[in-house]
């Protein structure tokens, strides 16, 4: 980790720590958007990290941005930071400057969006499902059918109908209906649908991986703290052998998840993420099931109430593991790669990592 990165992450950490309180997250889940924190993120440039300064972005690389998202995962930041960043990056590839608006995207195969040319632009018809933060977003990236061609489209949401729904974490996951909405002057670009969907799924998967690894750090910290403070049968919890077994498994799954997430970040930054994201999402998803179960078992009844911070973390892990591919999806992807690998043996495939860097240090648990 570079010195610069360390400084950025330190200040982000402090910002989240002081502003992203349990109450803020509660309010967000009740439907009140965390305007103030969002403004801070926009003003501090966090919402366009990874977009080159030449385009008007904050600069920095994906590595920086992904570690910021790891912190966002750790603090359960209840904002569309991941979605906005993803859209900024996708658009930056097309030379589009970053926006200070809330952005979202959806490449769900169930979506069906048609654009018909009109004298003034286009008329949009159709719907998109399970769209994160749609109700708060200003614009959305989707794949639209334009006169028989599939195009990446950046559509305004001000005239769309939004049907509210939310994921297990209480994060908006809405259905958007475009009922003959007239738009003018929108960004459109022909894309290979399969390829674009794969690109978004990989990027989205990677982001969930790092956010989940951050969430697991939080979960481990909460559990350790609880086992030190809480007594049962006259001893602190962590003295009970059954609890020790729990803490050890929590620690192991967390370290494994953080390690493989950091490895995936590094590989992505170097453009050599072939197997890494698939293997990492598979592992982190699997770990999420284990650690959430154990943390709740350890916390007992208090952990299943809204009063305790724990459930904000566990509900996010449960929601995120099913977003951008569950274990089966990524096992499919990984199996495909192994089946079609041109190395002679599995071992060669495993060790065939292009040289990443002489020594990379400090990408560990914060």
């Amino acid at each position, binding site marked *: 980790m570079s010195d610069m990165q360390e400084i950025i992450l330190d200040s982000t950490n402090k910002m989240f720590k002081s502003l992203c309180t349990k109450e803020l997250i509660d309010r967000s889940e009740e439907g009140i958007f965390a305007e103030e924190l969002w403004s801070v993120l926009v003003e501090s440039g966090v919402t366009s990290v990874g977009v080159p300064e030449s385009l008007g972005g904050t600069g920095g690389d994906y590595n920086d941005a992904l570690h910021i998202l790891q912190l966002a995962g750790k603090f359960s930041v209840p904002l569309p930071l991941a979605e906005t960043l993803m859209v900024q990056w996708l658009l930056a590839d097309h030379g589009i400057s970053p926006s200070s608006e809330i952005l979202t995207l959806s490449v769900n195969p169930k979506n069906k969006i048609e654009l018909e040319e009109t004298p003034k632009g286009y008329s949009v018809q159709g719907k998109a499902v399970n769209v994160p933060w749609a109700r708060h977003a200003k614009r959305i990236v989707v794949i639209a059918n334009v006169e028989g061609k599939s195009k990446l489209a950046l559509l305004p949401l001000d005239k769309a109908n939004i049907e509210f729904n939310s994921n297990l974490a209480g994060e908006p996951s809405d259905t958007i209906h475009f009922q003959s909405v007239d738009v003018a002057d929108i960004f459109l670009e022909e894309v290979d649908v399969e390829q674009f969907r794969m690109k978004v799924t990989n990027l989205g998967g990677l982001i969930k991986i790092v956010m989940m690894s951050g969430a697991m750090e939080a979960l481990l910290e909460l559990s350790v703290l609880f086992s030190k403070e809480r007594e*049962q049968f006259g001893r602190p919890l962590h003295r009970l052998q059954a609890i020790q077994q729990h803490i050890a498994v929590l620690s192991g799954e967390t370290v494994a998840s953080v390690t493989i997430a950091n490895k995936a970040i590094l590989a992505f930054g170097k453009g050599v993420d072939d197997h890494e994201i698939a293997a990492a999402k598979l592992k982190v998803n699997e770990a999420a099931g284990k650690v*959430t179960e154990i943390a709740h078992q350890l916390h007992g009844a208090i952990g*299943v109430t809204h*009063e305790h911070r724990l459930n904000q973390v566990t509900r996010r892990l449960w929601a995120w593991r*099913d977003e951008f*591919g*569950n274990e089966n999806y990524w096992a499919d992807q990984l199996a495909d790669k192994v089946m079609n690998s041109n190395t002679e043996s599995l071992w060669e495939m495993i060790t065939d990592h292009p040289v990443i860097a002489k020594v990379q240090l400090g990408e560990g648990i914060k």
Partner: protein
Amino acid sequence: MNKLKVPIMGFTEEQETFRNEVRQFIKSEKDTFESQVDSWLSGYSPAFSQKLGEKGWIGMTWPKKYGGKERSSLERYIVIEELLAAGAPIAAHWFADRQTGPLFLKFGTDEQKEFFLPKIAKGRCFFSIGLSEPNAGSDLAAISTRAERTENGWVLNGMKIWTSGAHLSDYMIVLCRTSPKNPDRKHEGLSQLVVDLSSPGVTIRPIKYLTGEEHFNEVFFENVIIPEENIVGQEGNGWRQSMAELAYERSGPERILSTFPLLEELIGTLRENKDFQGMKEAMKLLSQLYSLRHMSIGIAQLLEEGADVNTTAALVKDMGTKFEKNVAEVARLIIASSPSMTSEVRFEKLLAQSILHGPGFTLRGGTTEILRGIVTKGVIAE
């Protein structure tokens, strides 16, 4: 390993006919409720409870003179598993039928039996159980809620937590100290009192569960006056009475079937989609369910015979509740979806309920760790 004996039970033709009757009734009620995961905690419907009362299916094993029907445990088992499998709303009368009724029958005075049991059996009198306190979860010896005997009756002070459905119930059985704590005999001096939840001095504060719903409460008692005769059983014997209650309610179908509506939906979807691979992955669940159900049924029979089921019942609770959780974990892998409490897709909704209710399954009625201690003690003692 005598303590681990479980008989294999078959149902008689009469019992199968009765099962069919129950099933037909539930089918006829299908439009009045939405099938729910964990419906014995979250499916609250006094109207449905009353209908069950009219059918004679609450307190159905109790003596006729107290409003019961004197039917067998296995018949009660059939009613309960049919209701749970259908995800029917049975939370309102659940604790009164499962715990409070039997408690009165075993320890209650004639007056208590005559007053409470017929009302419970009609599905018109709901109870909640006051055991846990903030610092007394698994460790009930730490209970500090206390009742003092006065001329006007008992005066109750303290609080209970995690009381399921207290905000919707009429009464609560409160375990409290009736004499000061003796460090050497920590479990002595506790008694069970019947508290009318509409009494002055009772404050009920619902606790939001993971799902955002309110099934639990904190209940505060501030100088609540309770009639002297509202003590259940022997003064000072409350801990033993409560433990016996718990032990005897560990092996019921509600420890296996809480997420059955999700499993049913999963299998139904797989059949519809002719997804053979998915079906194959689901079969592990089915084989576990088979073995757990037959253990549970065998223990129901042993209970009827008065045998000691402390060890085997703890086993069923431990494995059954793990199974209930596991249904969700397996289902979400087989059918990729976006689980959500607000989804319009039935599978997604049931999956969300199962995931969010999951942590409770292995905490309520004795945590995994506690149960395993009980089992080992039982097995080692032989």
